[in-house]
């Protein structure tokens, strides 16, 4: 008995030692040999592509890699994705990895972390190349804050020339792409080169962990700053053959505010210098085979829209009643119907599920608060939603035509939604097909009883005298 006991003790001790080693192998044992960051500032949705070649210089394998962000940037992060590169050159493939926000003790200056979970742990001396992609919204600050109709829009972008990381970086370069060649000013952190539409910061060698060198770039960006402050999408499923979608938008131009006069004659006669940062068209991508599309607001139908359909997609180009200048708002409703067979399926365990696209159909827009309401038919039970990214969920009941108990509504809410969130999500529910007869049965029985009552009234003799 003593031998197995001692064996078990030794096992426990070695596991404990290994665990403690793993816990300490977070920051100091990993090193980034090469980092390349490309920041795309062409639109108001900032896309950053980070290529990191991570080496394990420690003694124990590492199963996760930490990404660090300054606290000001973390509030505006909409998406963080990572993938591991496998293979070289022509045979490169990318394996997507899980990225989750992570809390680390003693983070300097309130740095926030995301941890990338590797598919197989990185052994001692091994290296892996990670491709990280993240999106920042509301991070271009217009300056001047107010502009007139004939001025161009200039914005500030604040970041660091040196990539913030809990690991030491041996060599790194950052490339920043601006929409035009006009850059009013930029912070020089040598070596810095500005050529055409690209700013190159680097290469910088041997940077210790948590190095940070703040830079500010002041440049011209006239691409439309279309922000939807609030979007409510109602997806109503009807088993009689179609899904009706109604979307309520509150759109605003989130760039430099418009001050002073608006001269229509200048806007129409000199479009190249007048209202360059304003926009008057927005494109909405709708599913194919869409029907009964309408575009209206509180005071009626808006006739300025074009619908182009083909077999794979539909595009609705909407033109709000007036062009949007900085700070101007517009609210409207877009509604359409799609055939049921495109989106409702039956899963292997007998439950039905709706496979629909999350997100906002408008291209290149940020939605500050998105609410998706999936209205399930009456008689649906046990609804549940499967969404590929974190959302707030709750259930509601709504009442519609011929409803007795009410329809269950699955409500999904998310803040800071960008076009990368337009990916499918599923809502599962149980539905007994006999419930489809409930409505026609109700209607038929009401008429039946009414006619029976008429027949009875005409044939029953209610007179007192014989």
């Amino acid at each position, binding site marked *: 008995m003593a031998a197995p006991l001692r064996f078990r003790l030794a096992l426990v001790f070695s596991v404990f030692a290994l665990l403690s080693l793993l816990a300490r192998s977070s920051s100091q044992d990993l090193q980034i040999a090469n980092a390349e960051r490309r920041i795309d500032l062409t639109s108001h949705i900032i896309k950053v592509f980070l290529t990191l070649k991570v080496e394990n210089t420690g003694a124990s394998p590492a199963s996760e890699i930490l990404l660090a962000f300054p606290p000001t940037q973390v509030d505006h992060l909409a998406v963080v994705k990572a993938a591991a590169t496998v293979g070289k050159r022509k045979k490169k493939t990318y394996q997507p990895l899980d990225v989750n926000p992570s809390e680390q003790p003693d983070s300097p200056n309130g740095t926030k972390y995301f941890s990338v979970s590797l598919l197989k742990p990185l052994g001692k001396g091994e290296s892996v190349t990670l491709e990280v992609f993240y999106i920042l919204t509301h991070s271009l600050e217009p300056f001047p804050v107010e502009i007139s109709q004939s001025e161009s829009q200039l914005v500030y972008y604040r970041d660091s020339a040196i990539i913030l990381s809990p690991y030491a970086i041996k060599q790194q370069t950052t490339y920043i792409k601006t929409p035009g060649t006009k850059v009013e000013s930029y912070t020089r952190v040598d070596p810095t080169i500005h050529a055409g539409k690209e700013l190159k910061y680097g290469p910088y060698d041997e940077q210790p962990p948590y190095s940070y060198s703040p830079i500010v770039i002041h440049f011209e960006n006239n691409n439309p700053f279309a922000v939807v402050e609030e979007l409510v999408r109602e997806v109503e499923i009807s088993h009689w053959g179609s899904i009706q979608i109604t979307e309520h938008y509150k759109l605003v131009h989130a760039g430099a505010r418009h001050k*002073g*006069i*608006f*001269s*229509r*004659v200048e806007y*129409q*006669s000199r479009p190249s210098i007048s209202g360059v940062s304003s926009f008057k068209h927005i494109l909405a991508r709708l599913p194919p085979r869409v029907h009964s599309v309408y575009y209206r*607001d*509180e*005071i*009626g139908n*808006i*006739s*300025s829209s074009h619908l182009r359909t083909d077999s794979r997609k539909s595009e609705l180009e909407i033109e709000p*009643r*007036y062009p949007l200048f900085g*700070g*101007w*708002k*517009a*609210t409207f409703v877009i509604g359409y119907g799609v055939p049921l067979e495109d989106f409702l399926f039956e899963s292997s365990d007998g439950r039905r599920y709706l496979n629909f696209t999350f997100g906002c159909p408008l291209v290149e827009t940020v939605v500050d608060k998105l609410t998706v309401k999936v209205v399930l038919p009456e008689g649906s039970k046990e609804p549940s939603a499967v969404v590929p990214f974190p959302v707030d969920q709750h259930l509601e009941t709504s009442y519609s035509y011929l409803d007795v108990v009410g329809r269950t509504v699955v409500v999904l809410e998310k803040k800071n939604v960008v076009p990368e969130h337009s990916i499918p999500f599923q809502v599962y529910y149980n539905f007994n097909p006999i419930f489809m007869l409930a409505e026609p049965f109700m209607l038929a029985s009401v008429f039946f009883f009414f006619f029976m009552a008429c027949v009875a009234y005409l044939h029953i003799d209610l007179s007192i005298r014989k």
Partner: protein
Amino acid sequence: LGAFYVVHCVWAAAEAYSAPSIVLTSHSHDGLHVFDDFREAYAWLRHNTEVDDKVASWWDYGYQTTAMANRTVIVDNNTWNNTHIATVGTAMSSPEKAAWEIFNSLDVKYVLVVFGGLVGYPSDDINKFLWMVRIGGGVFPHIREPDYLRDGQYRIDSQATPTMLNCLMYKLSYFRFVETDGKGFDRVRRTEIGKKYFKLTHFEEVFTTHHWMVRIYKLKPPKNRIRVKK
């Protein structure tokens, strides 16, 4: 024959009996043009002005402004107070400074005028101007109709009277209108306008709709320092 009757009725109802006067249409060789300027202006007011801002216009547009733009108006279609209507009429017929004083005393922020000269819409405020003069003159004696008439007619071309060319309605309708075609040809009155190049001193243009049918101006705030003539 019955089927043709149905088709004919639907066509007649769509083409001849469905003319909402707020959305105008015209057929041209390249299709149907829709003039939705009124709703464009009301939607702009609804979303891009403060909730308590007051809009002054001729009383014909009062109800539409209240309902669609959701803003307070000075006179609307059911105003019974003739003096109040005459106040607005006088303001429209006065020179800029006097008009500003009247509107400022009513706490007005925006002035709305309807102008059909660019597209040929005949029911605009210049054609209704004679009523502004007559109603205003009926209450305020300094507005005299003969001041605006040349040979018994209201003119806005080079033969117009100086009072007419200086009144607020003329200025707000034709501000920078000459820049559209270089000559300032008014399609409703069928003549070039009299005063083509002028600046506004007490008002600023904040919105004009796509076909220039509705023009919205804002009252400029008073100057901080007033020069006293010695």
